């Protein structure tokens, strides 16, 4: 056969490098609306759920049991489950139906009911619903700050820049596990040097993550993973009960946390029990709610290659974000992993969350170039900053970021690097040279950074933990080395866990350490003229990109 030249051109387009798979419902390779998903049902006797989604009490696995015992409100369940799913879908889209009326019904829903409602909605309707159901009135954004070399000075500088660019939460992780204390330290100091009140976390093994939090090196946690089938839970040596216990450990010390869930993980691990990805995610979300956790990071997350490969997968990703919002959970809505070779596709996927706004549109926009992203790359990275800013300006949408000047970024990066240098000196850690400070100030990524003595760093990092250094020692070190303003900021971050206000749903802090959450700034969207509108000072920020011609100067 002669080959078509047009087909050849098409075959060479980036989208052809992506992986796609046809549906295979028998093993759960289907995004949503699978024929093998259970039909919603509920039966209650003497205040106890005796049947849920077609299973009787004696057939419950531990996920069903946990949901029946802790997540479904039996006082409304029977009545709520009777309302037709199409009717619920319409209420979600209807601007005249207030959020609280829907929430009351949702409290009585089972996993199958939530998944069935999503099946009646298209993506535009889901975005309408997300705009209304999102918890916090003002949308926000979270970023990843990591690098290939685990260089803590670069982490501090990138954290400072990310804070100036508008991220309210920053997350780091490690290449080499033992670097965790240094990365957490760099992120804590650097973020406050960019803007006061930034929340930071270090995603590592659960016990280490908890320890860093308890010591005051971080101010929240996110990677407490929940799964939708019993087998996958067990493979991870966990149960819903152990996750609830871990969540309460954070709460007991006044630290913000949310879980991580997301479609696709059960399929990837080969144990989806023949159910659709979205139905299994509905189970995860009810486990999270039942555990009393305030929020979740979902939207396929690290399994986006699975959900994104099947028909209606990106619709399912939006649906899972929406289900979480309906349940009253804070939603950090994914967009945090490389998803496609195609710029068109990765942008379209991201708009599903950016346009309606979520609590955190990205649960990890890469604040570094993707080559430095130790979460294996994000959907958008530092090289996309200007594109993203232009999208906000084009659409008059608040995506949580803003254009910044080179001068202010360099000043903040330099201050962050110098502060880390000073703290390392005060705490007796391996020295940070002036050359490193200089390099971190101007760097784009770790290729621009000199190498550190890794062996010495790892020894000192372990020693830092063994010596029992806490957040207060960091405050002292900053104060004694002349960074009094940073000392005050870090101290204020530590105070948060004593007053505990930032444990409320969807909490972030402003530059004066005031909590902005679903409690004091609830989303009150009910159509045009209500809810969050981009305007005033914020619109001026978004508008003023330096690429635009100024007519007055011509």
């Amino acid at each position: 056969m002669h080959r078509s030249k047009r087909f050849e051109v098409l075959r060479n387009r980036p989208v052809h490098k992506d992986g796609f798979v046809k549906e295979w419902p028998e093993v759960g390779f289907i995004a949503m609306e699978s024929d093998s998903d259970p039909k919603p049902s509920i039966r209650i006797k003497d205040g106890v759920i005796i049947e849920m989604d077609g299973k009787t009490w004696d057939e419950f696995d531990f996920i069903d049991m946990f949901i029946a015992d802790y997540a479904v409100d039996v006082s409304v369940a029977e009545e709520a489950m009777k309302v037709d799913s199409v009717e619920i879908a319409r209420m979600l889209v209807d601007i005249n139906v207030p959020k609280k009326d829907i929430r009351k019904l949702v409290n009585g829903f089972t996993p199958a009911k939530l998944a069935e409602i999503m099946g009646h909605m298209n993506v535009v309707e889901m975005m309408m619903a997300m705009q209304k159901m999102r918890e916090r009135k003002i949308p926000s954004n979270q970023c990843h700050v990591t690098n290939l070399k685990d260089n803590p000075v670069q982490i501090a500088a990138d954290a400072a820049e990310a804070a100036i660019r508008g991220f309210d939460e920053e997350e780091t992780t490690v290449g080499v596990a033992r670097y965790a204390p240094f990365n957490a330290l760099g992120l804590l100091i650097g973020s406050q040097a960019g803007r006061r009140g930034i929340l930071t976390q270090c995603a590592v093994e659960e016990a280490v993550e908890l320890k860093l939090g308890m010591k005051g090196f971080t101010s929240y946690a996110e990677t407490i993973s929940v799964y939708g089938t019993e087998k996958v839970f067990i493979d991870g040596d966990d149960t819903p009960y152990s996750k609830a216990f871990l969540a309460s450990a954070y709460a007991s010390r006044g630290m913000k946390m949310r879980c991580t869930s997301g479609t696709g993980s059960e399929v990837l691990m080969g144990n989806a029990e023949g159910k659709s990805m979205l139905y299994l995610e509905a189970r995860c979300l009810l486990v999270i709610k039942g555990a009393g956790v305030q929020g979740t990071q979902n939207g396929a997350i690290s399994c986006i290659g699975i959900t994104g490969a099947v028909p209606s997968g990106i619709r399912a990703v939006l649906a899972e974000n929406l289900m979480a919002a309906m349940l009253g959970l804070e939603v950090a809505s994914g967009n945090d992993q490389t998803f496609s070779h195609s710029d068109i596709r990765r942008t379209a996927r991201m708009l599903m969350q950016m346009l309606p706004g979520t609590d955190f549109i990205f649960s990890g926009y890469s604040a570094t170039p993707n080559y430095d992203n130790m979460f294996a790359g994000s959907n958008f990275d530092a090289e996309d900053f200007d594109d993203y800013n232009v999208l906000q300006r084009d659409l008059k949408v608040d995506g949580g970021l803003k254009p910044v000047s080179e001068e202010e970024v360099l000043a903040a990066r330099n201050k962050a690097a110098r502060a880390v240098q000073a703290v390392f000196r005060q705490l007796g850690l391996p020295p940070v040279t002036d050359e490193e400070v200089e390099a971190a100030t101007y760097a784009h990524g770790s290729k621009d950074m000199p190498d550190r003595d890794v062996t010495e760093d790892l020894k000192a990092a372990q020693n830092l933990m063994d010596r029992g250094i806490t957040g207060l020692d960091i405050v002292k070190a900053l104060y004694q080395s002349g960074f009094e303003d940073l000392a005050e900021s870090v101290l204020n971050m530590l105070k948060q866990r004593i007053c505990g206000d930032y444990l409320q749903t969807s909490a972030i802090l402003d530059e004066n350490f005031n909590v902005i959450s679903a409690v004091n700034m609830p989303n009150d969207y009910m159509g045009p003229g209500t809810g969050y509108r981009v305007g005033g000072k914020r619109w001026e920020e978004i508008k003023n990109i330096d690429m635009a011609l100024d007519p007055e100067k011509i």
Partner: protein
Amino acid sequence: MEFDEQLVKIVTQEVLKYLRDRQPADGENITSCSNKQGFRSNDNKQELQMESDKKELQVKELQIRETGEAVAGLYNDEVVVGIAPSFGGSQTETINGISHYDVLREIAAGIEEEGLRCRFVRVFSTSDVAFIALTAAKLSGSGIGIGLQSKGTAVIHQKDLFPLTNLELFSQAPLITREIYRRIGKNAARYAKGQSPAPIQVQNDCMVRPKFQAKAALLHIKETQEVVEGRKPVQLEVTFGKKV
């Protein structure tokens, strides 16, 4: 590229036809897989049809014969390679299109280059690469084993380690080349000789997920479906033949 199930079916049928023509069923449990030279999995159906019309095909043939229950080796000059339930059977190439013929041959060559012997076993009770590798290590006279999933994921294991630890893990199967398989064989042999070789540096590529994650899940599910719980590992006789 899209994973084309139809294509796999055609290839399988073709192979089976070849086998039927070549040898009458004799009750022996033989699996084999073929890999046409120059054949690429993303070529389209018509092209394949055209190719198969030509009678003369250069086909590498991997023949795997089961020779009874695997036993622990007595001599310390061997490395045992454990293969997953579908390897060289219902699956014939890695996620990246390297034929199982080449994978086993490279690993065997790597081991032999170090002066050691290579023994093959098939593990039926699990599709988890860590447990396959550990099973192989426990059967190995040297205590060193290699585990292989059909999609190409490989682990070098040692008999006295915890299952989820290892000597070397090659988790990103799409990035493993033929040369790396040979080096995996070499390094395993060096561990078996009591040396401490430098670990093979593994490449990291953030676009592996969008390209391969879904396919990896498919291949893993298919392999997991062939797991036979409780079945003991069997000894294999592997021959690297060539069909003309």
